[in-house]
């Protein structure tokens, strides 16, 4: 069964896999969540969540701290499996139509398809080059020319190539915070995922670095499906196509970002985004 996720991935059309060519396919949902319940031990953290995340768009998860948005994000690549006592009570998450909760799914293959960028940039204490090449190297890729190509392509994709091309073999830890975060994005896209999860990727960055990452997110959606958790309402408004608002483990409202930020249906959404509670 370990091959299930891999096998199904191989049958997907190129556009759905993050192809650099052709018009992106936004017609089908990339991630489908049906009546999901999630627990940290006895704590019922996500309650009956159902939503669909469209392909090749940016979907923002917003909500007050503890509302479950990061928990849901980590469900998409089963990062929660690493936390003891967590479990999915009911429901299902399907990526490309495949139920990823199935214990037989190869989580390594899943995480190759569903990359992640965290709140604090976390480059390995290695060179810039090695950071980007690492994912391929652990897959067994040894061909230097191929690695060079992927490193350049990934750094270009992360809008970082021009800034670091002359110092690829210096430590990634010597870069600025914004550059380190873009190294992490380059590292994530080096293994050609179809989905990139971002958990508050700009919260530790200054406005200029934030603008660069936001610009990058806008570019990346041509080739990837992006889900971003943010506490910055203006960032959600600027960057995302769809916005979902969570509160106390429940999905309160999801819709097009322009609708959510101009005329939300639910009063709770309105109160949260305008800073009246939360």
């Amino acid at each position, binding site marked *: 069964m370990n091959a299930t996720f891999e096998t199904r991935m191989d049958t997907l059309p190129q556009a759905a896999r993050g192809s650099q060519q052709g018009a992106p396919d936004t017609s089908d949902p990339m991630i489908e969540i049906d009546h999901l319940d999630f627990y940290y031990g006895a704590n019922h953290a996500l309650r009956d969540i159902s939503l669909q995340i469209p392909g090749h768009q940016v979907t923002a998860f917003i909500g007050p701290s503890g509302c479950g948005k990061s928990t849901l994000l980590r469900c998409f690549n089963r990062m929660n499996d690493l936390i003891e006592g967590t479990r999915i009570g009911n429901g299902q998450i399907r990526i490309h139509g495949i139920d990823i909760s199935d214990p037989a799914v190869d989580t390594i293959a899943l995480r190759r398809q569903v990359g992640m960028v965290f709140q604090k940039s976390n480059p390995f204490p290695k060179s810039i080059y090695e950071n980007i090449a690492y994912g391929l190297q652990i897959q067994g890729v040894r061909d230097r020319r191929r690695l060079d190509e992927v490193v350049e392509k990934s750094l270009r994709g992360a809008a970082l190539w021009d800034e670091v091309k002359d110092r690829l073999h210096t430590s990634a830890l010597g870069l600025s915070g914004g550059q380190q975060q873009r190294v992490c994005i380059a590292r994530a896209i080096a293994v050609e995922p179809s989905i990139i999860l971002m958990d508050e990727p700009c919260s530790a960055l200054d406005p200029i670095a934030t603008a660069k990452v936001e610009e990058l997110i806008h570019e990346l959606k041509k080739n990837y499906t992006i889900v971003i958790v943010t506490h910055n*309402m*203006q960032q959600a*408004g600027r960057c995302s196509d769809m916005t979902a608002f969570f509160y106390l483990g429940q999905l309160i409202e999801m819709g097009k970002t322009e609708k959510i*930020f*101009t*005329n*939300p249906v639910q009063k709770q*959404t*309105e109160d949260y*985004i*305008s*800073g*009246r509670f939360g």
Partner: protein
Amino acid sequence: MNHFWEKNLTEIREQLLLMSGLSERSLSMAMRGLVNRDETLCDSVEAEDSQIDLLEIQIDEMVITYMATHGPVAKDCRFMLAASKISSNLERIADQATKIARNAKRLNQEPLLKPLIDIPLMAQIGQEMLRDSMTAYVEAKPDLATEIVARDKSVNDIYKQLARELTSYMIEDPKTITRALNLLTVAKALERVADHVTNIAEEVFYLYKGEDIRHERGRKAIV
């Protein structure tokens, strides 16, 4: 719970109410200047116009400052957009009052061409529309706003009928042309007042409902 920044919204709302009160007073003074042939009142209208212009500038400054510093969303964002547009329309209503006052002064130099019946009626409807639109704004009554939009048609109808009547005066006796044109200018100004009030009512509806009802008749015709 009231948040500290909501005082900015209250201040903008109060400035708008002050502006609408002044605009309505200008309109009322201009009409009394015309009906009572009172030149002093007409001069007062022109003198007050600059105060209303200043209020428009102040409201726009408050709106732009709030938008730049607070990044309003949802209803707060619509509030800011509506405030700017409402103040712009109120300023134009005051401009129309000034136009009426200037024409009234010219008309007051000569005998009346005809009894003033339709023009005061247009002014009365326009003033009621203005009062009701600000009531809809303050009391959050979008349904009242839609009703105001419907009333604009009656002002348009009176204007068209009066324009036909004044045209016939001018055809029959060219010596009436100057007075007829001045009256027509006053009537056109009142018709524009009703249009501006309609715009305000549409902004009020958008503010509270989040739906754009501008140019609805035109849109329906296209659909």
